[in-house]
């Protein structure tokens, strides 16, 4: 069996520059990750902070043998943002991840990948992107295993990627909820989203943990954890497995998932180690089972009522 690709997804949160640089350096030097995503996906206002460091970060990652992917904005709303996409599409030698169809047209003819923010729900859409030169397609988080299996049947040479760890992006808006929670408008946001390194926890009025807010983005409170299904996904044809960065020790996390991908450790063992990291996490895998995404079923045989 060919080795599965282990992917470090883009940093979704507004970490400060030194934390981010340190993060990428450690991923470059200390992990067995194959692919690393850089670039801002959530909010264009955050871009100026890190853009200046990008060339160095990319170079260091490439020197360490990592494939570097530049992820693009999920919600593109104005001319300035469109122009940024045009510039990105011109960048030579970098694999670009399209997270909005606006850049798909600009990338026609060059090797690129389709990100999970683009709605690839069925064979027809999958084949369209494959025909247009997508090398890899990261599937939307909402897809159940039954759909993933159907897409694997038509994948041909295209790699299929699924996120197996981290909070799940559930929605994106023009409105900034971090700013709103602080009594601010987006235009004068003071970058308050940086106060929450893994997103701002949102509870119901009954104090049940529910969601996490990250600026324009709303994530799940739960951390998706799909190690129970990795072997099955590998058999079905999924070849790339994404970890979404959080503020816990991602070097350790990537080691654990590499071991599961290589069948050297069990999902129980992996969760045992995750729980020992003293980082508050509850797990979910409901989307894969076609039940509420917040649920955690572990075995695929259990179905909703």
């Amino acid at each position, binding site marked *: 069996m060919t080795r599965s690709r282990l992917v470090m997804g883009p940093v979704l949160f507004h970490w400060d520059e030194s934390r981010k640089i340190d993060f990428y350096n450690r991923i470059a030097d200390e992990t067995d990750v194959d692919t690393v995503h850089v670039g801002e996906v959530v909010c264009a206002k955050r871009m100026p902070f890190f853009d200046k460091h990008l060339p160095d970060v990319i170079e260091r990652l490439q020197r360490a043998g990592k494939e570097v992917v530049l992820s693009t904005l999920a919600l593109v709303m104005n001319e300035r943002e469109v122009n940024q996409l045009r510039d990105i599409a011109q960048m030579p030698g970098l694999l670009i991840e399209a997270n909005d169809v606006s850049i798909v047209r600009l990338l026609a003819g060059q090797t690129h990948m389709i990100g999970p923010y683009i709605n690839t729900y069925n064979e027809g859409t999958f084949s369209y992107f494959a025909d247009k030169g997508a090398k890899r397609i990261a599937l939307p988080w909402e897809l159940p295993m039954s759909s993933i299996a159907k897409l694997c049947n038509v994948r041909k040479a295209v790699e299929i990627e699924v996120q197996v760890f981290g909070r799940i992006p559930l929605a994106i808006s023009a409105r900034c909820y971090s700013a*709103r929670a602080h009594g*601010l408008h987006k235009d004068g946001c003071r970058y308050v989203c940086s106060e929450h390194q893994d997103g701002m926890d949102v509870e119901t009025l009954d104090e049940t943990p529910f969601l996490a807010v990250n600026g324009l983005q709303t994530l799940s409170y739960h951390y998706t954890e799909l190690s129970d299904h990795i072997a099955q996904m590998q058999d079905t044809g999924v070849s790339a497995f994404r970890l979404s960065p959080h503020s816990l020790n991602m070097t350790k996390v990537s080691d654990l998932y590499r071991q599961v991908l290589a069948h050297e450790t069990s999902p129980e063992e992996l969760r045992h180690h995750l729980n020992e990291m003293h980082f508050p996490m509850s797990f979910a895998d409901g989307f894969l089972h076609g039940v509420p995404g917040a649920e955690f079923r572990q075995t695929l045989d259990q179905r909703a009522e």
Partner: protein
Amino acid sequence: MTESYPSFTPFFLANPFIRNAPTFLVARICHQAMATMHHRYRPVFERIAEQEAFALLISPTDLDLQFYLKIDADHPELRPARHGEEETIAAQISGPLPALLELLQGSSDGDALFFSRTLRIEGRTELVVALRNALDGESIDLRSAVAESFGVMGPAAKVALGLAEKIYRQLQHDMNRTADALTSPTATRLLGLEKRTSAQAATMAEIEKTIQRRNRHTRVKPSGTAKDDFALPANP
């Protein structure tokens, strides 16, 4: 299910009669009305009961009477509700009879009535939504349906109904005026106090239940949530 305060509509005045009316008569009228509805608007029943038959409890808040409504493509049923029937009921709709009748005829928007809290729904909301959607998909003419229910008396019934409607509108007008007069500050306060006492008892019972149900939720916010901490200043 919920105990509601009576709505002050002209139907409220009918309560003494309804209370004393023989049950069989009410049941008979209901049966006749349903038979007519089923005959005239069969597609409605087919549309809703496409997946399953189910029963609803209709609680007009201005009548001392609740109705059991069974939605079934072939054998629908409408009759006064009996005690101990709650188990078989999928959902309950409560509201003043005029609002319920408007809903039936599609002359008032169900969502709007619901947003303004005129109607309350408990239980399986999707079935009530299905009923509402199916009813709305037909042009239900209650007046001619009622007339038809009375068979040969049709034309006479129509005249009587027209007269009844006129009296009803006059009554409604008078009662609204009475209600306005009643809502003087003292009356409001007294009514409010009484309401609050019984509500507090209910709240306590609910809190106890909630605490038993889930250990992790030690604090319960039954009310006082009206404020919105996230509201931003209005548009400049």
